[in-house]
C-alpha cells in the first residue's frame, strides 16, 4: 500500500517535471525571439541607411571628403556639402551641454542630498514627467516663448537661432541628466557620508568631495545620455533653428543641424539627393555610436 502510494507520487512528480522542462524550453525560445527581433531591427535600419547612403560614394563619383568638408549644400546644382550642418550640430549639442549639465547636476544633487523628503517627492516625478513630453511640444514652447523673447531682447530680425536651439535642447536634456544622476548619487553608500561627516567635514564639502566623486561613473553616463538626446533631437530643433545653410559664427545665427536637414528634405528628395540624406544619417549615426562607445567605457570603468 505504502509503495503504491510512493509510486504514484513519483509518477506525478516526473510528469510535473516534464511539463516544467517544456515550459522552461519554450519560454527561453520566446525570450530569444524577442531579443533577436530588436537586433534584427537594428541591423535592418543600419544596413539600409548605410546601403543607401554609401551608394553615391561607391558607384557615383562623389568624394566622401568633400561631402564631409564641403560647405555648400545645393541639391539642385548637385552640390552636397554638410560641413555647416556638422558644425551646427556640434555647437548646438555642446552649447546645450554647457547649460544643461551644471543645471542638471545641481538639481540632481539638490534632490538626492539637500532637499527635504517632501520636496524631493514632488519634484523628482515632475522632472521624470518632463522626459515624457513629446518633443514637438518643446519646439512649440521654444517657438512661442523663447524665440520671441530672444527676438525682442537681443534685437534680432529672427529669433530662430543657435542660442534658441541651445536653450531648448538644454531643457530637453535636463530630465535625462537629473534622473540618472540622482539615481547614481542616491546609490552612494550612506557609510561614505557618515565617514566624512564624522571627520568634521561640512555637508556641502561631503557632497562635493565624497558623494559626487563616488557617483562619478553614473553621472558621466547621465551626461553622455543627455548628449545623445540633444544630438539626435529633430522635431523641436526644426521649429527653432531657422534652418539656414551657413556655418554659424555667432550665437544668434540661424542654423541647420544634421537631423533637421534629413527631416526637412526627405519628403521630396529623389535620386542622389535622397541618397545624400541617407549619407547625412550615416554621419549622425557615427556620432551617436561614438557617444555610446564612450558611455560603455565609462560604465565599464565604474563597475569594477
Amino acid at each position, binding site marked *: 500500500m505504502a509503495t503504491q502510494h510512493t509510486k504514484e507520487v513519483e509518477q506525478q512528480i516526473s510528469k510535473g517535471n516534464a511539463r516544467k522542462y517544456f515550459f522552461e524550453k519554450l519560454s527561453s525560445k520566446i525570450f530569444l525571439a524577442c531579443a533577436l527581433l530588436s537586433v534584427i531591427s537594428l541591423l535592418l535600419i543600419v544596413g539600409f541607411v548605410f546601403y543607401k547612403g554609401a551608394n553615391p560614394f561607391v558607384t557615383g563619383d562623389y568624394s566622401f571628403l568633400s561631402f564631409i568638408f564641403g560647405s555648400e549644400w545645393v541639391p539642385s546644382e548637385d552640390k552636397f556639402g554638410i560641413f555647416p550642418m556638422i558644425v551646427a550640430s556640434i555647437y548646438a549639442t555642446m552649447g546645450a551641454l554647457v547649460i544643461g549639465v551644471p543645471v542638471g547636476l545641481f538639481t540632481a544633487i539638490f534632490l538626492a542630498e539637500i532637499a527635504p523628503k517632501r520636496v524631493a517627492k514632488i519634484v523628482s516625478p515632475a522632472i521624470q514627467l518632463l522626459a515624457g513630453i513629446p518633443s514637438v511640444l518643446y519646439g512649440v514652447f521654444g517657438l512661442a516663448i523663447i524665440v520671441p523673447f530672444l527676438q525682442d531682447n537681443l534685437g534680432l530680425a529672427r529669433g530662430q537661432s543657435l542660442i534658441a536651439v541651445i536653450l531648448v535642447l538644454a531643457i530637453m536634456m535636463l530630465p535625462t541628466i537629473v534622473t540618472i544622476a540622482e539615481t547614481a548619487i542616491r546609490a552612494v553608500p550612506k557609510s561614505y557620508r557618515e565617514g566624512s*561627516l564624522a*571627520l*568634521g567635514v561640512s555637508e556641502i564639502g561631503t557632497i562635493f568631495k565624497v558623494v559626487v566623486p563616488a557617483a562619478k561613473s553614473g553621472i558621466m553616463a547621465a551626461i553622455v545620455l543627455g548628449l545623445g538626446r540633444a544630438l539626435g533631437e529633430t522635431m523641436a530643433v526644426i521649429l527653432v533653428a531657422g534652418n539656414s545653410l551657413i556655418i554659424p559664427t555667432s550665437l544668434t545665427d540661424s542654423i541647420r543641424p544634421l537631423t533637421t536637414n534629413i527631416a526637412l528634405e526627405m519628403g521630396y528628395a529623389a535620386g542622389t539627393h535622397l541618397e545624400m540624406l541617407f549619407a547625412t544619417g550615416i554621419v549622425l549615426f557615427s556620432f551617436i555610436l561614438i557617444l555610446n562607445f564612450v558611455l560603455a567605457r565609462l560604465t565599464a570603468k565604474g563597475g569594477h
Partner: protein
Amino acid sequence: MVMMVTEVAAVNKQQVSTASAQSKILVDDLNLFYGEKQALFNVSLDIKEKEVTALIGPSGCGKSTFLRTLNRMNDLIDGVRVSGNITIDGEDIYASNDVIKLRTKVGMVFQKSNLFPMSIYDNVAYGPRMQGIKNRKVLDALVEESLRGAAIWDEVKDRLKTSALGLSGGQQQRICIARTIAMKPDVILMDEPTSALDPISTLKVEELITQMKKDYTIVIVTHNMQQAARISDKTAFFLNGEVVEYDDTNVIFSTPKDQRTEDYVTGRFG
C-alpha cells in the same frame, strides 16, 4: 557647618579614588527619542580622560545611540530629540550648533570600514585637506604619523597611492583609525570596530587601542566580553536604554553590584 565639612571630605575622597584620571566627558540625565520612541533613559556617565571606556549590553539597548550622541551623529536622523546635558572639557556640546568643531575633536570609527573609494593616502589626508591644509610636506608628514599611530605604516608605506579598498578588512579598519587620528582628536568613539574582523586582526586593533590610550580618550562599544575586559578601564552596562551599572572594568567583571550585570557578563542572558 559640620555637615558641610563631611560633604567636602566625601567629595575629596571620591576625587582621590579617581585621582589618576580627570573627567573628560560628563553626561548628565540624557534622554533620547527617535520620534515617539524613547531609546535612552536618564543616562549619566562620567568618562575619564585618557582611559578606555567600554559600553556593553544586549543588542538594541542603545549603545550605538548613546555613542552617537557624543559627536552628534544622531543629528542626521530625522525626528531625533535629545534632552539632558553632555559636556566635553566643560563645554556643553549641544549648546552651539558648531558640529564641525565638535566632530574634529571627537572622532569616530565605525563597525564596518567606510574608507572612501580613493587611495590610502587620500583617505588619510582627506580630513586635514578639508580643513584647508594644502602644503604637501605637512600632509605627507601627517599621513605618515597617522599611519604609524594606527600601526599600519609598515604594511602600506609602499602602496600609499593605491586604492584603499584593495586592503584586507583588518587593514582597512586600521586605516579608518589612521584617518580619524589625522584630525588630531581628543576623543575617539568606536562602534564595534572589530566585529567584522578575524581574530588576528582583532588582536592587532586591540593592541592599537591599548597604545592609543595614552593620547586619546576612547569610548568603545563591544559585544565581546573578553575584549571589554582586556582593553577597557571602565565599563558601562546598558540595558533597555538605561545604564544599569558603571564602574571599573575589573569590578564589573568580578564583583558587579547589580544582579542583571552579573547575569550578562557571565553569559546567563543577552
